[in-house]
């Protein structure tokens, strides 16, 4: 195990989580899966922040029974990540409430359909025809607009 030492594995974990999270946000169309992607991205970023000051052989920054270790881990990124995790759960709760609201308003969580319905609504309010985009994806034409798709798979 020359190449795969402890540090490299941890960095692969952090960058891999971030990459998977971003791909979830970019590729999927379902709102729940986008929220899952945000949670994954946040987890990877937290791990990366902690790894930035990690030294092999340092001990935890807590004194136990007056034996003071020679080298302790850096407490500042740990405090930052603690804050970030707690704020992350607030963001998560807010996003889930908004998703419930979107479901109530539009009857679906598929972002393509939500976008179409939003455009329809805006053009109805303005009293003009809905502008047809030339970059409209091909597969959206097969989905009837009025159908409420409950179980839409994500990607």
């Amino acid at each position, binding site marked *: 195990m020359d190449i795969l030492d402890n540090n490299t594995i941890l960095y692969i974990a952090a960058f891999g989580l971030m990459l998977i999270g971003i791909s979830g946000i970019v590729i999927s169309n379902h709102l729940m899966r986008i929220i899952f992607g945000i949670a994954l991205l946040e987890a990877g970023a937290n791990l990366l922040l902690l790894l930035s000051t990690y030294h092999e052989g340092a*001990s*935890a920054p*807590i004194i*136990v029974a007056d034996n003071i270790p020679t080298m302790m881990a850096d407490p500042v990124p740990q405090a930052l990540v603690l804050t970030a995790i707690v704020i992350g759960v607030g963001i998560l709760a807010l996003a889930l409430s908004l998703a419930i609201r979107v479901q109530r308003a539009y009857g679906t969580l598929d972002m393509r359909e939500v976008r179409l319905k939003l455009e329809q609504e805006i053009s109805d309010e303005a009293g003009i025809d809905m502008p047809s985009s030339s970059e409209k994806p091909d597969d959206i034409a097969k989905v009837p607009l009025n159908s409420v798709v409950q179980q839409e798979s994500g990607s």
Partner: protein
Amino acid sequence: MTISTLEFIAIALLLVGMGFSAIRLFLGPTTPDRVVAADTLSVITTAGLAGMAAYFNNPIYLDIALVYGTLAFVGTVAIARAIEGNQK
């Protein structure tokens, strides 16, 4: 820090258990299979955290195992209630 034979066997058993539960998590045909596999993994990880406390020779890590053991149960119960839905 050397690892004795007994500790090596314990670590190997934990890793094998983790591998089998992970296989059930990825392949499991139904959702309850996957949830039970995730719960088993959380129990294995609790044991692993206690093992890490022994490896680092530091009792403060045991608190994490305590919190994990109590709250993983709550999370699994919430998922189970959601699977149940409104059927009785």
